[in-house]
């Protein structure tokens, strides 16, 4: 098992992960992907969702929203806008954010920009809650 990927997950606030891992699963903008050793170079957008990595048989999950993924020479770099470990998510806050986003989207007088913003918020909230409910 010497064939490891070097994964780093960073957000503007923090360096979240910097580890050697066996596999990374990411929510790409065009669909979910699994990245293994010797993956071809790729650069893609990420959507809000669940990012997990496997390390020595253990799976660790994070919730990320937006950002980029780059893979080169077995280095996986995730530049996320926000990110938190699953076990750190505050359920109440997530539910509140979800309700807020829904309320905003129900308004009819939103400009396009506001609409997209609210939509993003909703996706983020959904991603958080979805993961909580699965576990």
């Amino acid at each position, binding site marked *: 098992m010497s064939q490891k990927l070097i994964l*780093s997950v*960073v*957000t*503007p*606030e*923090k*360096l979240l992960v910097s580890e050697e891992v066996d596999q990374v699963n990411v929510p*790409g*903008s*065009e669909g979910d992907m699994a990245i293994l050793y010797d993956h*071809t*170079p*790729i*650069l*893609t*957008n990420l959507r809000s969702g669940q990012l997990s990595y496997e390390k020595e048989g253990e799976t660790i999950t994070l919730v990320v929203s937006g950002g*980029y993924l*780059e893979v*080169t020479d077995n280095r996986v*770099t995730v*530049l996320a806008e926000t990110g938190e470990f699953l076990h750190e998510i505050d359920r109440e806050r997530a539910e509140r954010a979800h309700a807020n986003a829904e309320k905003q989207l129900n308004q009819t007088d939103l400009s396009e920009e506001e609409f997209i913003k609210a939509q993003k918020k909703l996706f983020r909230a959904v991603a958080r809650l979805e993961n909580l409910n699965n576990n």
Partner: protein
Amino acid sequence: MPNLKDIKRRIQSVKNTQQITKAMKLVAASKLRKAQLAILEARPYAIKMMDVLNHLAARCNHDLHPLLDVREGDRTLLLIITSDKGLCGGFNGSIIRKTAQYLKDNAQNENSLIVAGKKGNDIFRNRPVEIRQDIIGWTKGFDYLKAKETGENLATLFAEKKVDRVFMIYNEFKSVMQQEVVVEQLLPVIPEKVEKKDDTFVVDYIYEPDEETILDQLLKRYMTVEVYRAFLESSASEHGARMTAMDNATRNAGEMIGDLTLTYNQARQAYITKELIEIVNGAEALKG
């Protein structure tokens, strides 16, 4: 012979100053802790971002994006970051010196400035150079959004070909005691040369959704992140510089108090001696 009362007043006044510098030092120290944490945590993101962009720029076609466009022109825009408040040692002085030096060395170019911080504005307002924008009061509540605004502003100026190059001059936070003035080219983005090994060739990325979209977003993000980082570096440096300056001031005040107290005691001693001699002389005179 110095007047005893005067010396006493001096000592009191120096003591008051010392109290103020001491308080300022403590305030700076606590602000520094926060600023230091912020910059240390923001750095990895900025570095990774730079890496990704470098990889990307080395591969892709430079005509693809206006922000990669290397032009011949000589219109240069400098973003310089100073503080709003003084009393922080050489912090602003070194930035201003460096900027003035740069303007002198590149006088043939068409230079303009965006000056952040009151101190820099006070100086450059009276110099023969165009100030495109001033960002005063940034030290209070600076955040990512503000950086985004500034970053996008710079990008627009560049993309609309109003300027040909953009530099940043700011204090980089080395340690609490040390700041270093850096001049950094922000635009056009210069990719580092990727070393080509003989037997391998650079493989292009798979792009999702497509190259242009990603490049566009990434470059915009990069501008924001770089500006944000520069401001955070500056903020941490400022508090560090102020703390060091105030620490020195407090120590100097202490020394001064020591010296003055010695002078005071000497003067008092001399006064007492003089008085004693007078009394003894008087007694002698009466005896005789």
